[in-house]
């Protein structure tokens, strides 16, 4: 018979992963970010996560901005919903192609990402925070285990709010030279392809919209992901 939560469920690093994800979420909320929740195979989980943050069960806790995105066409809908500084969280199997696509695009949208699931894991690096139950039991999503994980995310996020000194992300550019600011391989998503030869494309990156040269990767269509360096798309990210 399928079991539910076990006392050792968070062993093997999951407790630490939840802690890190909660701090990242608290920091994004503190900076004005919105949480977007998806769960293509188990949509009630998306709604449950969102209502948890919007209408806290504990009186006096802050209401935080969170929405569930459900139904078809999640990628185009998330593309217009998500803004830089937001959070994208999914409950889905590790092989869910829609969630993999969303998570891959999150850096271009400026969103932090988290992926909750069970069974075979998504590929390494698929999301900023992978919160995983390795048990292969296909019934795991219906036995309270996922509910526990996002309840804990909510509870721990609110603990982080009691530590205002830790809610500011450390400055990334403390040194004279840093990878981020030297514009090395930032992910961009094409909004508008070039109008003609030697014309630039309009793309979206974590820092906003910009026009870049796409000669090296042409032709491009809206939605294509490219890596940008010094105002030009150098290549397409691996796996595309």
């Amino acid at each position, binding site marked *: *018979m*399928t079991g*539910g*939560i*076990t*006392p050792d*469920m*968070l*062993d093997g690093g999951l*407790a*630490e992963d*939840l*802690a*890190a994800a*909660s*701090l990242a979420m608290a920091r994004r909320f503190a900076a004005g970010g919105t949480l977007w929740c998806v769960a293509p*195979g*188990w*949509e*009630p*989980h998306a*709604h*449950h996560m969102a*209502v*948890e943050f919007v*209408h806290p*069960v*504990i009186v006096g806790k802050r209401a935080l901005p969170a929405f569930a995105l459900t139904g078809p066409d999640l990628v185009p809908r998330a593309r217009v919903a998500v803004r830089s500084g937001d959070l994208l969280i999914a409950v889905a199997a590790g092989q869910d192609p829609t969630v993999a696509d969303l998570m891959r695009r999150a850096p271009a949208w400026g969103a932090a990402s988290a992926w909750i699931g069970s069974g075979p894991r998504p590929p390494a690096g698929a999301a900023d925070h992978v919160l995983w139950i390795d048990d292969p*039991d*296909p*019934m795991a*999503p*219906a*036995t*309270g285990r996922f*509910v*526990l994980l996002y*309840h*804990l995310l*909510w*509870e*721990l996020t609110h*603990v*982080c709010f009691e*530590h205002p*000194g*830790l809610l500011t992300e450390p400055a990334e550019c403390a040194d004279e030279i840093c990878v981020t600011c030297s514009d090395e391989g930032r992910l961009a998503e094409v909004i508008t392809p070039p109008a003609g030869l030697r014309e630039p494309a309009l793309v979206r990156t974590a820092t906003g919209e910009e026009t870049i040269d796409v000669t090296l990767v042409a032709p491009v269509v809206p939605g294509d992901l490219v890596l940008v360096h010094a105002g030009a798309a150098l290549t397409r990210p691996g796996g595309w």
Partner: protein
Amino acid sequence: MGAGLGGPRPPAGRDPQSTAFLYPFIEAEERDVGPLLADLAVSARAKAAESAALQQATLAASADQVAACGAAMAERFAAGGRLYAFGNGGSSTDCATFATLFASPPAGAPLTYRALSALNLAADQAVVTALGNDVGFDLVFSRQIIAHATANDIAVAFSTSGSSRDLMAALREARGRGLLTVGFAGYDGGEMAASGDVDYCFVVRSQSVHRIQESQALLGYQLWASTQQSLKRAFQQASQKTGPNPHGGTP
């Protein structure tokens, strides 16, 4: 600067005369996330252990009731009945998961598990907002029971308090119409446990809304499995009476 020779040593990079590292929470501006992350992980483990213990205690206390309720639900389904699940907030999503288990058993469920008619009464925003606006939120589910239900049906309410007015009104309406009524509650069971309108009331004895919902999820799962087992047994008994199909192929 050499390494300290014995005695407590402040963390690297701190003024050796400062004792602030002993009292991180009285620092006006915390900067080191290490202690917080460690605390969060310890807290997460403690809550998981608490939830695991509550799930086990709840299942142990409810085992007979789950079996009896599953058998009663199987009878209703076998007679053509339909299940209506309803709840508020997070509980509405838990009842949606519960209804989904019945209506479309997930990939990986045993092959003998049948898809059964089950609906989440919170799912239709047109109906919920029309009723909430026109007749009041307390009647959003009971009015739907009036519209949809027949005597073979099943009403299942998910609540943590056990006393939500909209759920109690719907259970009362359902009971009056001959439906099988099932309630999920927390705390001490609230009005559901005391009411004569609830045939089977499952109480998760906790004071935490989150821990209650985590145990209700497992209870709901077990109730679904119990219903499916009862249907399977009924099918096997019917098969034995009928005997092998004379027109059948290889066994």
